[in-house]
C-alpha cells in the first residue's frame, strides 16, 4: 500500500511543539484533500490541520492532550485505498514530549479559546450505559436474595444502580457497593472520582497561573473609592449618548484613569524579564481585559489605550471581549498587553487577590459597587462605594509606589473631571 505521512506543520513562529486538542478523524475514515484531520494548540492559537491528500486514515499521532513536536508524524494515510484500514496502528514512537511548552518564546502569552477543546469527562467504567435511570419512587429490580442481603447490610437498594438487564441489581453490584466503589445516587457518602483531563485552554490557564504565582511575589493593595460622582456622570452620559456610541460601563473610565496614572508612574506599565534582569517600560498602554469565556479565562487586549478617548476605549473593549467570547479573536487581539484590568462585574466581591498577567507588573481588580454609609463630618450619608484590589510585582514595585498608583486612580475616579483635564 502507498502510505502518505502527514507531518505536523510549523503552526507558529519559532515554536517547537504544539498540543493536540482535537481529532476530527479516526483510523479507518476516508478523507479528501483539505478535510480537517485535527487541531493543535500552540501558546498563541488553535490551528486546524487539513489533509494534503485523499486517502484512508491508518494511523493517528496520539490522543487529545498529547504534546507533539513540530515536524513529527501527525497522520498516516493509505492513499491507494486498496489495503484494509486498521492494521497499521502500531507505529514507531514519535516525539510526544510531555514537557510543558516553552514560556520564554512568548513575551505575552495570552491564550486562545478553542470551542472544541472542552474537557472530556472520563466516566467511571462501573456505570452501565444502557439502562435508563429509575423513575422517582420506582422500586429497584433485584432478586429476593439480593434484597435480603442488602437489608441485612443496612443498604437501601434504591441507592444502587443495577448493572443487570433492565437495571436489575445483582449480587456483584451489591459487593461493589459494599466495597465502597460504586454508584451512589443520593444522600450517601460519595466516593466516585471523575477524572477530567486538563487540556487545551484550561491547561494554558493552569500553566500561566502557576508561572505567575510561582515567580512573582505579589503585593495586593485594596483601597476604597467613592464612585458616587462618577456614577452620576456615567448615568448622564449614557442618558444623552449618541446612537453611534457604546453604552459606558465603569471600565472605560478606569482605563483612562490608569493611562493617566502610568503616565506619572511609567514603571507600572512594564514587562519584567526576570531571566534577563530587564524591565521593559512601554510607552504604549495596551490594556489587557481579563474576560470569562465558555472554556475559561482569556485576556483580550485594547491596544493603545493612551491614544483612545473614553468612548473609543469603551467601543474597543466591547469589540475585543466579544471576539474573545466567540472564539474568533486573532493573535494580535490576545497578546501584547502591558497592564491588565480584571473585573468580575456584578459578582465583584468585597476584595480580591488578582494574579498578575505575567510578565506584566501590575493588575487592577474592580470590586462590586455598593451603597454604604459615609461619614461626611456631620452625618452619615449614603455613597456609592467600590473597592479596587490591585496586585503588583513586589520585586520591582515597592509598596509605596503601588499605593501611590492606586491613590492616583482613586483621586481621578472620585473627581471624574480630572480624568478629562490635563493638569
Amino acid at each position, binding site marked *: 500500500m502507498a502510505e502518505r505521512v502527514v507531518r505536523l506543520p510549523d503552526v507558529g513562529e519559532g515554536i517547537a511543539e504544539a498540543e493536540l486538542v482535537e481529532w476530527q478523524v479516526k483510523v479507518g475514515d476516508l478523507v479528501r484533500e483539505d478535510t480537517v484531520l485535527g487541531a493543535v494548540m500552540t501558546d498563541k492559537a488553535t490551528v486546524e490541520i487539513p489533509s494534503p491528500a485523499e486517502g484512508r486514515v491508518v494511523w493517528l499521532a496520539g490522543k487529545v492532550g498529547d504534546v507533539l513536536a513540530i515536524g513529527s508524524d501527525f497522520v498516516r494515510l493509505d492513499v491507494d485505498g486498496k489495503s484494509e484500514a486498521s492494521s497499521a496502528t502500531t507505529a514507531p514512537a514519535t516525539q510526544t514530549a510531555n514537557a510543558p511548552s516553552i514560556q520564554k518564546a512568548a513575551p505575552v502569552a495570552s491564550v486562545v479559546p478553542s470551542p472544541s477543546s472542552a474537557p472530556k469527562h472520563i466516566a467511571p467504567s462501573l456505570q452501565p450505559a444502557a*439502562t*435508563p435511570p429509575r423513575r422517582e419512587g420506582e*422500586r429497584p*429490580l*433485584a*432478586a*429476593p436474595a439480593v*434484597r*435480603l442481603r442488602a*437489608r*441485612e447490610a*443496612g443498604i437501601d437498594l434504591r441507592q444502587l444502580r443495577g448493572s*443487570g*438487564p*433492565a*437495571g*436489575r441489581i445483582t449480587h456483584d453490584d451489591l459487593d461493589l457497593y459494599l466495597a465502597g466503589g460504586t454508584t451512589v445516587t443520593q444522600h450517601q457518602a460519595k466516593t466516585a472520582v471523575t477524572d477530567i483531563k486538563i487540556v487545551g485552554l484550561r491547561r494554558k490557564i493552569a500553566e500561566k497561573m502557576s508561572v505567575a504565582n510561582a515567580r512573582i511575589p505579589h503585593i495586593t493593595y485594596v483601597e476604597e473609592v467613592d464612585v458616587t460622582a462618577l456614577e452620576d456622570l456615567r448615568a448622564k452620559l449614557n442618558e444623552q449618548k449618541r446612537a453611534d456610541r457604546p453604552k459606558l460601563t465603569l471600565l472605560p473610565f478606569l482605563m483612562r484613569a490608569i493611562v493617566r496614572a502610568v503616565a506619572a508612574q511609567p514603571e507600572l506599565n512594564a514587562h519584567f524579564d526576570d531571566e534577563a534582569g530587564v524591565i521593559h517600560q512601554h510607552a504604549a498602554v495596551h490594556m489587557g481585559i481579563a474576560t470569562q469565556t465558555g472554556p475559561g479565562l482569556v485576556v483580550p487586549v485594547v491596544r493603545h489605550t493612551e491614544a483612545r478617548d473614553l468612548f473609543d476605549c469603551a467601543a474597543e473593549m466591547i469589540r475585543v471581549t466579544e471576539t474573545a467570547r466567540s472564539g474568533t479573536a486573532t493573535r494580535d487581539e490576545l497578546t501584547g498587553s502591558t497592564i491588565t484590568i480584571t473585573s468580575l462585574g456584578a459578582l465583584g466581591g468585597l476584595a480580591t487577590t488578582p494574579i498578575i498577567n505575567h510578565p506584566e507588573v501590575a493588575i487592577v481588580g474592580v470590586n462590586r459597587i455598593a451603597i454604604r454609609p459615609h461619614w461626611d463630618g456631620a452625618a452619615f450619608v449614603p455613597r456609592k462605594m467600590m473597592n479596587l484590589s490591585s496586585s503588583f510585582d513586589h520585586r520591582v514595585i515597592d509598596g509605596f509606589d503601588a499605593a501611590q498608583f492606586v491613590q492616583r486612580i482613586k483621586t481621578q475616579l472620585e473627581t471624574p473631571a480630572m480624568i478629562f483635564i490635563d493638569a
Partner: protein
Amino acid sequence: MADITCKLLVIGAGPGGYTCAIRAGQLGIDAVIVEADRPGGTCLNIGCIPSKALIHAAEAYETVARAADGNAALGISTAKPSLDFAKTIAWKDDIVRRLNGGVSGLLKRAGVRSVAGRASFHDGKTVAVETTNGVQLIHAETIVIATGSVPIELSSLPFGGRVISSTEALALAEVPNGLVVVGGGYIGLELGTAFAKLGADVTVVEAAPRILPQYDGELSEPVAKRLRTLGVTVLTSARAMGLNADGTALVVETADGGQTTIEADKILVTVGRKPATSGFGLELLDLDMNGPFIRIDDRCRTSMRGVFAIGDVTGEPMLAHRAMAQGEMAAEIIAGHRRAWDHVAIPAICFTDPEIVTVGLSPGEARDKGFEIKTDLFPFKANGRALTLDRDDGFVRTVARADNHALLGIQGVGVGLAELSAAFSLALEMGARLEDIALTIHAHPTLGEGLHEAALKSLGHAIHI
C-alpha cells in the same frame, strides 16, 4: 394453674400463626401458640385443603360420569358411576386430620408449646386462655395476632338451616339436589363447580355484571364458558333478597329488575370474608385500624410496641401463603433479623375449572400505574400438551414494561394451571425480563410452554402461533 411466661406468644395456629411459631422455634425463641380449634386454621380445616379435596373428587366423578354418558372423546365408556358422598367426605377429613397431626408435630419439633383454648387479651403483654382445665394466663414479651378471618354473613340470609357458609358446604352429608351459590367470587365458584360436577343443580347469583369480578374479563371468560358447559346457571347483576315465605327457596332480584324464586336444598353464601377482630379483647389494645383490618407496617408491627399482626386479620389479599410469608418474616424480625416486606408479587389462584393464576399486575393495573406495557397471550389451543389433556381452553398472558421488558405480571387460565404459579412468581420475584423467559428452555410438551410463547410473542417471534 401456673402462669406461662414466654418470649413470643402467637394467637391463632392457622398458616400464618403456625409458620411464625415454627420459625421462631427454629430461631431459638421461646414461643407459645394458642389455638381454640385444631391447628391449621381456616385453610387446612375448612378452606383450601378440604375444598381442593372435594374439587378433586368431583373432577374424578365427572370424568367417569361423562364417560358413562358416552360423551368422552377418549374412547372410554363405562357404566353410570355411583357416589358414596359420606366416603368422599371421610377421605377429605382424613387428609385434614393427617395435616392437623403434621402441623402439631412440626410445632412440637420446633420446640413450640401449644395451648388449646380461646385467647383473650388482658393487655399488650398478657393473654388469658380458656382451656378445658381453666384459665391459663400467658405473659409474653411479644405477641403476634394471627386470628384470621370468618365468612361474611348477609343480614338478609343469616347462616342456619338451608343457608350455609363454605364451612358447612365442605361437610355436607350428601350432595344437594339444588344448590344456590350467592356470590360468584372464587370461593363460591370453586365449590359451586365441584357440586355441579357431583350432580347438583347449581345456580350462581352474582351482583356484579360478571362472575369473578376481581379478575379481568379475559381471565374469567373461560371459566364462565366452562360453567355453561357444566350446566351451571349464572345470574349476573342479580341480588339475593332473602328466603321465600316457607324458607325453601331464594328470592332473587334479576338484572331486569324482576324477581325470581329459586328452589334450593342449600343456599351457599360466599360473599367474602372479614377479619376476625372481635371476641378476644382486641379492643382493649386500642390498636390503629386500617378499615376493618389491623393496621401494620412493612414489618407486620401494629401501632403497639411488641404486638405484631399477620395474615387475614391484616388485610387483603386474604391468602394462606401471604400469611405464611408474613409469619416467617415476623418471627425473624422478633429474633432480631433485619427483614421487611418487599415482595414483588403475591400469587393468587382460583381453583375453578379451568384454574386461574395471577401474579403481579394485570394489563389494566399496569396501565393505571402509568406503565407503558407490552402484553401478549398465548392460547392453549396452540399448545400440544393442552390438546392431549383434552382441554384446549385458556391461555398464558405476560405483562411487561415496554421500555426495558421487565415483567410486571403473568396471568393464565387453564386446566391444572395452578402448578405454573411457581414459575410465574419466580420470574417476577427475580426481576425477569421477557428475554429471560424467552431464553429459558421450557420442557415440551407442557402447559409451561405457554409462558415461553407469550414472552416470545411480545418479543415479536412466537414460534407456535
